[in-house]
C-alpha cells in the first residue's frame, strides 16, 4: 500500500513539475493567465526596443493600399482615357486579384530558409511604389494588366510577412497592441488614399495619370523610410526565448546551435503541417467565411451608396474615410483590452472576435435597411470598427500557436482562404443583387457573417491545447538537445503521445513507442488496434494530429515519407507489397529507386536478393501479380536487402502463408536483424512474433496497453485473452 502511495506521489510530483513548466512556458509566450496589460513604454525600454519596426511596417502597409484604392476611385477616368470597357477593367482586376491570392505563398517560401523577411518587405514596398508610379504611364490594356498583376504579386509580402515580422520584433506582452497599431496604420491608409487622390485631383488639378505619379512618388519616399528595418529572426521573443530558458534551466549553459541539427521541413511539408493544427483548420474555414463577407462588402457598399443615397465619388470617398477613421479609433481602444484578454486566455480573444463579427454583420444589415442616411453612417461606422478589431485579434491568436519559422506560411495560408472566400462572395452577392436589389444583397451578408463568427468562436476551445502542443514540442526538442549535449542515450526511434485520425475517426490515442539500435520488437494487438497505422506514422505515410516521431533524436514527425527512406527507415507494407504489373526484377529495381543512378549497386543488391531467396531467381521474369503469397512477401522483404535500412518496419509478414514459407521468411528477418538493422514486426500471430523478439508492445483500441519483455506479455491474460491466449501460451511452453 505504501509503495502504491509512493508511486502516486511520484506521479503527482511529475504532473506538478510538468504543469509548472507549462505555466512558465505560457508566460514566456505572453499568456500569463492574468488580465493585465503592462504599459508599452517600459516593455520596449526593458528590451531596448523602439517603435521603428511598427512604424516602418505600418507605413509600408499604409502605402501598399495606394494603388488599389486609387485605381478603385479613378476607374471611370482610366477606362475613358484608355478606351476600355468596364468589363475589360474588371477582367484585369480579376487577374490582379488572383496574383494577390497566390503571391503570399512564394513570399513565405522566399523567407523560409534565411532571415530576410525585412529585406523582402523593403524591396516589395519599393516595388509596389514604383508600380503605382508606373500606372500613370500605362497606355494599353496589356500594360494595365501587367502593372496590376505586378502590384498584386508585390503586395503578397504584406499578407505573408508583415504580421510575423512584427510579432518577432516585439515581446509577446505587447503583441495585440502592436498588431492593433499596425492595423490602425493600414486603416489610416484607407483614409489617406482617397484623401490624397482628392487632393491631387482637386487643388493640384492632376489627371488620373498625375494622381498615380504623385501617389507613386509619395509611396516611394515613404517606403524608403523603412530601409532601416531588420529581421530579428523567427521567435526571438517567444519560441526561441522558450528554448533558451529551458536549455539554461536544464544545463546552466546558454543555448548553442543545437536546434540547427533538427531536420528541416520543406515548403509543402510546412504547409501540410500547419493545416494539421486544429485551430488553424478551424480559423481557415472561418477566414473563408470572412472572405465571403468582407471583400464583397467593400465592393458593394460603394454601389449601395450610389444607388440608395445618390452619393457621387466625392461624398463616397468622404463616407469611406469616415468609417475608416472610426475603425482607427476602435483599434486604439481595442489594443490594451485585447492584450488583457490574450494574456488571460487566447481563447477569450477568439470568443470576442466571433461575437464582434456577428455584431458587425448585424450592423451591416441594419445600415443597409436604415431609413435615414445618418443611421446608415452610424451603423456602417460601427460595423467597420468591429471588423477592424478582428485583424489583430485573429492574427495574434493564429501566430501565437505557431512555431515562429512557420508564421509567414500560416499568414499566407489563411490569407489565401480569405481570398478564395471573397471570390465566392462576389459571385453570391452579384446573384442576390440581381434578384432583390443592392440593399437586400448587403443585408444578406449577415448570413456568412454569423456563420464565420460562430466558426471563429468555436476555435476558442482548440487554441489552448494547440498552445500547449507547441510548448510540448519546444520543451521536448530542448530535452532531447540537452540529452544529446550530455552524451546521454537516445533511442533510435521514439514516438511520444501520438494521436492519429482518419478524417473524424481517431484511431491512435497518446501512443508512446520506442525502438533501440539493432533491436527487434513485436507490435501486437487485435485487428483494428492501430498497429499498421502506427507503422504508417513512423514511415511517414500517415501524419499524426498530435505527438512526435523522432529518429536518432531528430524530429521527423512531418517529414515526407520519401525523405525518411534516405534516413534509413523502410517499411514492408502488409498484404501484397509488390507492383503486380511489373516482373520480379523490375520490382526489385523499383525498390532501388532511392539509390539513384548507382546501377552497379542496384544490380549487386538484386543478386543479393536472389542469393537470399533462390526461388525469386527462378521466377525473375514472372509478373509479381502471378507470384504466390509467399513469393510476394519474399519480393517485399527484398526491399530491406536492397535499401539496407537502419529501421525496418514489417507489417503482417505471415498473414495467409504456409508455415514452411513463414519459417523461411522469419529466418531472413533474423538475418537482416543480425546485420544491425532494427526491426519492428507487426503481427497478429503471437507465437510467431514472440518466437523472434525479446521486447513486445501490445495495442488495443488505439492505445498502447503493454510495453515490456515478451515473456511478461505472456503472463498478461487480461490482454491476450481476446485473441491469442491459448495458441500463444502453448507455443511458448
Amino acid at each position, binding site marked *: 500500500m505504501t509503495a502504491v502511495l509512493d508511486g502516486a506521489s511520484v506521479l503527482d510530483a511529475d504532473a506538478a513539475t510538468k504543469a509548472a513548466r507549462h505555466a512558465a512556458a505560457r508566460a514566456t509566450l505572453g499568456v500569463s493567465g492574468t488580465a493585465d496589460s503592462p504599459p508599452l513604454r517600459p516593455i520596449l525600454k526593458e528590451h531596448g526596443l523602439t517603435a521603428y519596426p511598427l512604424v516602418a511596417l505600418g507605413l509600408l502597409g499604409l502605402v501598399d493600399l495606394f494603388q488599389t484604392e486609387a485605381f478603385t476611385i479613378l476607374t471611370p477616368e482610366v477606362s475613358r*482615357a484608355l478606351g476600355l470597357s468596364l468589363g475589360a477593367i474588371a477582367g484585369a482586376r480579376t487577374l490582379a486579384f488572383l496574383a494577390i491570392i497566390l503571391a503570399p505563398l512564394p513570399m513565405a517560401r522566399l523567407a523560409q530558409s534565411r532571415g530576410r523577411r525585412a529585406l523582402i518587405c523593403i524591396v516589395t514596398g519599393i516595388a509596389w511604389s514604383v*508600380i503605382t508610379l508606373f500606372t500613370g504611364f500605362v*497606355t*494599353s490594356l496589356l500594360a494595365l*494588366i*501587367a502593372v496590376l498583376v505586378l502590384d498584386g*504579386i508585390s503586395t503578397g509580402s504584406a499578407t505573408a510577412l508583415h504580421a510575423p515580422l512584427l510579432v518577432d520584433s516585439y515581446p509577446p506582452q505587447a503583441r495585440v497592441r502592436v498588431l492593433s497599431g499596425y492595423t490602425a496604420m493600414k486603416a489610416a491608409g484607407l483614409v489617406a488614399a482617397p484623401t490624397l487622390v482628392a487632393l491631387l485631383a482637386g487643388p493640384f488639378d492632376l489627371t488620373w495619370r498625375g494622381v498615380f505619379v504623385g501617389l507613386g512618388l509619395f509611396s516611394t519616399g515613404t517606403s524608403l523610410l523603412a530601409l532601416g528595418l531588420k529581421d530579428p529572426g523567427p521567435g526571438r521573443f517567444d519560441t526561441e526565448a522558450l528554448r533558451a530558458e529551458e536549455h539554461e534551466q536544464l544545463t546552466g549553459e546558454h543555448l548553442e546551435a543545437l536546434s540547427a541539427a533538427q531536420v528541416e521541413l520543406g515548403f509543402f511539408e510546412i504547409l501540410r503541417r500547419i493545416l494539421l493544427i486544429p485551430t488553424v483548420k478551424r480559423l481557415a474555414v472561418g477566414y473563408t467565411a470572412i472572405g465571403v463577407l468582407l471583400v464583397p462588402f467593400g465592393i458593394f457598399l460603394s454601389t449601395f451608396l450610389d444607388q440608395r443615397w445618390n452619393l457621387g465619388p466625392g461624398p463616397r470617398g468622404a463616407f469611406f474615410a469616415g468609417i475608416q477613421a472610426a475603425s482607427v479609433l476602435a483599434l486604439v481602444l481595442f489594443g490594451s483590452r485585447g492584450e488583457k484578454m490574450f494574456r488571460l486566455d487566447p481563447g477569450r480573444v477568439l470568443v470576442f472576435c466571433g461575437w464582434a463579427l456577428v455584431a458587425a454583420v448585424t450592423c451591416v444589415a441594419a445600415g443597409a435597411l436604415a431609413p435615414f442616411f445618418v443611421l446608415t453612417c452610424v451603423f456602417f461606422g460601427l460595423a467597420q470598427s468591429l471588423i477592424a478589431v478582428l485583424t489583430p485579434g485573429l492574427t495574434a491568436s493564429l501566430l501565437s500557436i505557431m512555431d515562429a519559422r512557420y508564421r509567414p506560411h500560416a499568414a499566407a495560408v489563411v490569407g489565401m482562404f480569405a481570398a478564395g472566400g471573397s471570390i465566392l462572395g462576389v459571385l453570391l452577392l452579384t446573384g442576390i443583387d440581381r434578384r432583390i436589389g443592392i440593399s437586400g444583397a448587403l443585408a444578406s451578408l449577415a448570413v456568412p457573417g454569423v456563420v464565420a463568427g460562430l466558426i471563429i468562436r468555436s476555435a476558442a476551445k482548440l487554441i489552448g491545447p494547440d498552445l500547449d502542443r507547441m510548448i510540448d514540442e519546444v520543451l521536448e526538442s530542448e530535452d532531447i538537445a540537452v540529452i544529446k549535449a550530455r552524451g546521454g542515450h537516445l533511442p533510435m526511434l521514439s514516438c511520444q503521445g501520438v494521436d492519429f485520425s482518419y478524417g473524424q475517426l481517431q484511431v491512435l490515442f497518446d501512443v508512446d513507442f520506442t525502438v533501440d539500435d539493432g533491436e527487434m520488437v513485436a507490435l501486437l494487438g487485435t485487428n483494428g488496434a492501430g498497429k499498421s497505422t502506427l507503422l504508417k506514422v513512423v514511415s511517414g505515410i500517415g501524419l499524426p494530429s498530435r505527438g512526435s516521431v523522432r529518429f536518432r533524436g531528430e524530429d521527423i514527425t512531418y517529414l515526407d515519407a520519401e525523405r525518411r527512406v534516405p534516413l534509413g527507415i523502410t517499411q514492408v507494407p502488409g498484404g501484397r507489397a509488390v507492383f503486380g504489373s511489373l516482373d520480379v526484377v523490375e520490382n526489385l529495381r523499383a525498390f532501388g529507386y532511392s539509390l539513384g543512378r548507382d546501377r552497379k549497386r542496384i544490380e549487386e543488391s538484386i543478386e543479393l536478393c536472389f542469393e537470399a531467396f533462390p526461388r525469386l531467381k527462378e521466377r525473375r521474369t514472372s509478373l509479381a501479380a502471378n507470384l504466390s503469397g509467399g513469393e510476394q512477401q519474399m519480393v517485399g522483404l527484398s526491399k530491406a536487402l536492397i535499401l539496407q535500412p537502419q529501421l525496418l518496419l514489417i507489417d503482417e509478414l505471415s498473414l495467409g502463408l504456409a508455415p514452411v514459407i513463414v519459417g523461411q521468411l522469419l529466418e531472413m528477418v533474423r538475418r537482416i536483424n543480425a546485420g544491425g538493422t532494427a526491426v519492428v514486426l507487426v503481427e497478429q500471430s503471437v507465437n510467431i512474433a514472440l518466437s523472434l523478439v525479446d521486447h513486445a508492445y501490445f495495442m488495443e483500441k488505439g492505445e498502447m496497453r503493454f510495453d515490456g519483455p515478451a515473456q511478461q506479455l505472456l503472463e498478461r491474460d487480461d490482454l491476450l485473452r481476446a485473441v491469442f491466449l491459448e495458441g500463444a501460451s502453448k507455443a511458448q511452453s
Partner: protein
Amino acid sequence: MRLRTARAGLAVLCLVAAAGCQAGQLQFKNDHRLSFVSPQARHRVTMPLTISWTMKDFDAVGLDGSRDKGRGVFAVFVDRAPMPVGKDLRWVGHKDTSCKRDPRCPDAKYLADRGVLVTTETSVTLDVLPSAPDGAGDEQHYVNVVLLDGTGHRIGESAWYRPFTSKRRSSS
C-alpha cells in the same frame, strides 16, 4: 527550374508594363481649354440635341494638312471612346476590312454612322442617339470631344467628357 520560370515570367510582365508605358504625349495635368455649354452633366435631354462648347487657345481651321498642335478640328465621339493618342480618323474603321480597302474611307457619312462627328464649329446637333443597352430607367449616354490636327491625327490625351441621359425608347 520552377524558380527560373517564375523569374522569366516576372521579367516578361515587367517588359510588357514598361513597353506599354509611354511618357511622351501623356497628360498629367487637367486641360481646361474646353468647357461644355450644353447639355448639362447628367441631365435628361430631348431630341434634337445640341452639344456646344467654348474653346480657348485652339484654332479650328479644318483639315489643312498642318501638324500644328494649336490648330485643326474638333472630333465628337458619341457613346464611344476616342481614338488613341497619335492615331488619325482611319482608326475608326481599323477593324472594318471593307473600309481598310477603300482609300476614301472613312468619309463623313461613315464616321457619322459610327457616332463620330468632325467639325470646326463649337457645336453639333444630333437628331438621334445611338441605341442604348437594355435596362430600366433613363438611357445613359455621353460624348467625348477631342482635338485633331490638320492631318486628322489626335493631339495629346486631352478629351472632354460629358454624360447625359435621355428618355428610354421602347425596344420594339
